[in-house]
């Protein structure tokens, strides 16, 4: 019996080899060895809502979390909530590291005021976030929250933080409707999709003169919201024949690729996250699509380049997030042994703002909330000042290039 099993197992394996030989016989002549890919995401230009280029203001120095070194405070903590595990973990970990850097710099410089960071892993899932929000709120030492990270989970938990009066500044949730719920505690540390969407769309329409664009969304709160904004602004340029919806978690996009090839657009705009964008762009390129691949902040992550490889070359990525520059970038790289990622800058800046409040004596939830509401100052990524609904007063979008 055992002999038979072994023999048959070998037969199966051998047969597999033979078939591969037969099938591969028609392959072409050997080509060059594949090279190690050195593609990186590099900042290109800042754009405003009309898609026109805007020069960055280099003159003002960003706020330093170290402050004057003389702050005193009772033990308080700042919480951070986001995806620290799961397929989108890179985006959450970037924010956590940014906040961590700000807090560690502050604590090192101010021995009289030691603030603690309390991270909470929601996996970016609205359902898990709903279970975690009460834990954050019940901790009496937590007077501020940087997060949640994703739009879906922010939508699910905003009411909880509003009721508890806990200031919740998100470093990355860009869905437009989040600031329309009347939450007094919601603050957005970057431009929303209502700005990102039209800015990218106008950039494609006006600056790049695209005549036909396929808009693909991934059926998530974030993806749909952004895609809707892009479709509305593009108007007739967004080809109605390739208005495609895929699902988060999909790995096979052959039907979408067929549709895109049939429509023959100048660009494809993918509204979703990097774990789907990577196989999608690879399958697009394998299928022979030669136009531009454009996406937004959910895709802008080194994992996108790693997983898509050479297919990601030339991809245009929009992001409300600013590039990490100056001493912040060096300190981050030294501390975490990797370069700052998407939203690290926002995490750092929002953490710094809360620390400034704590240093200034705002050690209760109402006091810190008030401080943030009235804050006006420069950060690494941008100037921070908020409208009564929690949106920034000045909003610019960055365009990045994979090269």
């Amino acid at each position, binding site marked *: 019996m055992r002999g038979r099993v072994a023999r*048959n197992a070998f037969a199966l394996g051998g*047969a*597999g080899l033979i078939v591969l030989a037969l099938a591969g016989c028609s392959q072409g002549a050997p080509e060059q060895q594949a090279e190690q890919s050195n593609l990186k995401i590099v900042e290109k230009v800042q754009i405003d809502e009309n898609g026109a280029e805007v020069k960055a203001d280099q003159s003002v120095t960003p706020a330093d979390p170290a402050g004057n070194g003389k702050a005193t405070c009772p033990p308080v903590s700042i919480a951070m909530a986001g995806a620290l595990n799961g397929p989108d973990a890179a985006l959450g970990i970037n924010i956590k590291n940014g906040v961590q850097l700000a807090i560690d710099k502050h604590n090192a410089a101010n021995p009289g005021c030691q603030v603690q960071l309390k991270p909470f892993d929601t996996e970016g899932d609205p359902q898990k976030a709903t279970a975690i929000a009460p834990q954050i709120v019940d901790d009496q030492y937590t007077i501020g929250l940087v997060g949640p990270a994703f739009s879906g989970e922010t939508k699910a938990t905003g009411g909880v933080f509003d009721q508890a009066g806990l200031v919740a500044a998100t470093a990355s949730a860009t869905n437009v409707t989040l600031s329309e719920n009347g939450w007094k505690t919601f603050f957005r540390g970057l431009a929303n999709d209502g700005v990102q969407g039209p800015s990218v769309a106008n950039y494609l329409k006006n600056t790049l003169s695209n005549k036909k664009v396929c808009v693909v969304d991934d059926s998530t709160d974030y993806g749909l919201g952004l895609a809707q904004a892009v479709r509305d602004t593009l108007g007739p340029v967004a080809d109605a024949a390739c208005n495609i919806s895929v699902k988060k978690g999909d790995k*096979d996009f052959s*039907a979408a690729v067929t549709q895109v090839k049939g429509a023959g657009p100048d660009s494809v705009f993918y509204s979703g996250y990097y774990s789907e964008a990577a*196989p999608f762009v690879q399958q697009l390129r394998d299928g022979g699509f030669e136009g531009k691949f454009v996406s937004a902040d959910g895709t802008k992550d080194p994992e996108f380049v790693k997983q898509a490889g050479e297919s990601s070359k030339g991809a245009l990525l929009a992001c409300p997030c600013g590039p990490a520059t100056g001493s912040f970038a060096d300190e981050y790289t030294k501390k975490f042994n990797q370069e700052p990622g998407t939203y690290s800058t926002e995490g750092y800046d929002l953490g710094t703002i809360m620390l400034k409040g704590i240093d200034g004596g705002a050690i209760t939830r109402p006091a810190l909330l008030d401080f943030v509401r009235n804050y006006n100052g420069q950060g690494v990524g941008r100037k921070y000042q908020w409208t009564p609904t929690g949106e920034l007063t000045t909003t610019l979008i960055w365009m990045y290039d994979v090269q």
Partner: protein
Amino acid sequence: MILAANINFNVGALVDSFWQLTIDGLSWGAIYALVAVGYTLVFGVLRLINFAHSEIFMLGMFGAYFALDIVLGFTPSGNAYNKGVVLTIVYLGVAMLFAMLVSGGAAVGLEFIAYRPLRKRNARSLTFLITAIGMSFVLQQFVLFILPKLIPGYGGPNAQQPMVLVQPKTQFTFLGVAISNVTLVIIGAALVLAVLTDVAINRTKFGRGIRAVAQDPTTATLMGVSRERIIMTTFLIGGVLAGAAALLYTLKVPQGIIYSGGFLLGIKAFSAAVLGGIGNLRGALLGGLILGIMENYGQAVFGTQWRDVVAFALLVLVLLVRPTGILGESLGKARA
């Protein structure tokens, strides 16, 4: 207002790309078919739905990756490698053997650790089911959390960086359909494996043993068939085929090597097995092919995001009309 989903009814798209969709569907169907065999054989012999089979498949993917990475020394690179025809085939063959080894071993190990103790205690079938679901999660979480600590760079929350050995290229056009080398490899390999498995089950001695145990375990023992050995062989065959399917899948979707990569595919393969007639080997193969093709048609007609819905709706519809599946349950029935 944002519509959460639009549903089209675009029969035109189906008619236009009919053959292309069929061929693409066949290559997906081949992968489903190979995985479905594992479900159907185990059900036939043990009346157990082995929900952990999707993770056996997932482990096979990691096995193939391991072969390419550590045994053969490839590094994840931006481009596809092109080492020439013969070498590529040899490398793929080695990767497939490794995938089969890992999957087969995992399947047998799973049987030994999780199901055999339950059988010894005459547990109820519900207990088996719960254990199967539990083992599915255990294996997923193992790859998510523990594997990165055992082998740095493997597992964890992100997909493995792909190593593309075969650059998808259209080999020839037939009836207006571009047939790529990847499709050829998948369909060819799956065909041979399917034929071999069919021969193994229907014409060899231990295949007769499997059918005997599926029909009546007690009488089979009286006839001199070792039940435990048959069960181990059944899991082994299912695992080996899942390993082969895993390698073929990584050719199609190089970014799919992640701890959760087997889950949805496993559910679809199980549906394919039920569709074709659970417990029936040819039914599993047929069900896999049908599911792959109909899924693709459904995507074209209704919209890309309805793909999974079409797959499961098809299952429900077929079961309403023919509850035993298309070819009916037959592993346990006496055949001339």
